[in-house]
């Protein structure tokens, strides 16, 4: 404990010794310097007159966007249905593919820790680190625009997420139950079905609903790059500067996000 004795005999407690304090300050100094440099860089790239004008522009957009054009709602039902389908079907496909990946990635169920596990982990990392919008861009270039590209984009993006959470759940299972089933002379698949699956089923259900909730959010914007759903209408309205339609679509998206979050919270509450 760094305690300094002053000349008049009083002792003062400090949180850090002098040396620790110095290194601490040095780290902070470097950090602040990096931040200032970054900020300067951003500032150089910015047209500041536009920024000073921003409050006026924001007010202008707001007056243009209100009130929302409610009659446009008729044209939105079909895109909303598409959006829900993209999220739901995408989640389902992702789950089907995530299960084997998760079993290959979990230390206690992988067929080979040396060869199969790294491949499974690579699939998890690479699908997870790329945003669904980028996957959508890529798939549109490959299979053309439309709802199908959106479904596949959502599915690919979700594999890594679901598989990661699922394999962590598999690694945390109770060994004794598996041993008990093995002791009855069950085959590898029977151990899987009666020893492991029942233990991870609640986690699996929770993960799928959780991911579905996230996917509803993501599928609302996939249309911006042409992958179907309500985002197409959003992008069209933005391009034609139809602000009353934009505000209506944003409201719809907000409502969809709130509802899906509510559903997901309810279902997860019921399962766990």
């Amino acid at each position, binding site marked *: 404990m760094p305690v300094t004795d002053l000349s008049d005999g009083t002792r003062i407690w400090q949180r850090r010794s002098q040396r620790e304090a110095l290194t601490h300050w040095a780290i902070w100094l470097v950090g602040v310097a*990096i*931040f200032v440099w*970054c*900020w300067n*860089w*951003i*500032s150089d*790239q*910015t*047209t500041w007159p*536009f*920024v000073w004008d*921003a409050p006026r*522009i*924001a007010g202008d*957009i707001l007056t243009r966007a209100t009130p929302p054009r409610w009659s446009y709602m008729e044209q939105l039902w079909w895109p909303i*249905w*598409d959006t*829900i*389908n993209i999220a*739901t*079907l995408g989640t*389902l496909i992702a789950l089907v593919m995530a299960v084997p990946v998760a079993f290959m990635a979990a230390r206690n169920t992988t067929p080979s820790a040396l060869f199969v596990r790294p491949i499974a982990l690579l699939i998890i*990392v*690479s699908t*997870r*680190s*790329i*945003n669904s*919008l*980028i996957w959508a*861009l*890529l798939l*549109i*270039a*490959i*299979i*053309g625009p*439309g*709802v*199908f590209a959106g*479904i596949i984009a959502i599915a690919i993006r979700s594999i890594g997420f679901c598989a990661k959470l699922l394999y962590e759940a598999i690694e945390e299972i109770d060994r004794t139950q598996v041993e008990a089933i093995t002791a009855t002379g069950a085959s590898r698949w029977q151990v899987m079905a*009666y020893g492991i699956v*029942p233990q991870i*089923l609640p986690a699996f*259900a929770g993960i799928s609903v959780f991911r579905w909730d996230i996917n509803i*959010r*993501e599928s*609302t*914007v996939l249309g*911006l*790059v042409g992958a179907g759903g309500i985002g197409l209408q959003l992008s069209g309205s*933005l391009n034609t500067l139809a602000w009353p339609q934009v505000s209506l679509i*944003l409201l719809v*998206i*907000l409502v969809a*996000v*709130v509802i899906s979050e509510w559903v997901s919270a309810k279902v997860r509450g019921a399962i766990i």
Partner: protein
Amino acid sequence: MNGEATELNAYLGKRWRRPPMIKRPWLRWLLIIGGLAYLVAAIASVEVNWSRVYEGLDRGGAFIMSFTQPDFTTRAGDIWEGLLESIIMTVAASVVGILISIPIGLGAARNIAPLPVYMICRGIVAISRALQEIIVAILLVAIFGFGPLAGFLTLSFATIGFLSKLLAEDIEAMDRSQAEAVRATGARWTQWINYGVQPQVIPRLVGLSIYRVDINFRESAILGLVGAGGIGATLNTAFDRYEFDTAAAILILIIGIVMALEYISGIVRARVQ
């Protein structure tokens, strides 16, 4: 089932069945039938142009093959500039976002903040969480013009919602007795926060902040699609021109940086916790 199992059945007279996940039968059947009906309707409504998909398979194959020989050099300048912009936006937005989310997180914790402050801070958190990054980015680009400033503001805004909420939950779950002990020494409010509350939440705050840096980098990769700066614009151009080798190089770089960040965050979290 094999022979032994049927023998056992004869002894017990009753066959063991796996307990169903949903206990109430009517609810179970409703969910199954409803789910199937929805699936049929959904799949029927998706129009797939299979001939287009089939034609695209070649391009898909070409794209996958381009991962084996990514082209880092042809557009090295563009890639480097975009990546640098993404990283700079990530760093600046994370710093600002974390700094702002600490007071808002304190305000959104019911056991620290008075009710009016609590309501305001919770409201900010709710708004920030309900709007996706990309939509915020579109609006901010419309308001502030193209460039990294819009991306920086978007990421900061998203960071506030994420971090404040988790920080507030952490503070609400803290050990009250430690904070009270500090208060009993006659500490001022700032001292109370600094010595009673902060040490309890700092490990989790550090962990979450690093996790958020990771998310911010990933998000910064798409902000360029709507003109908010970063590597996304370069990536979009590469896809539009079917320059799959350049796109593959960018994707490899993104994956590599995300992996490195995850690795670093693992080390840091292990050290602070």
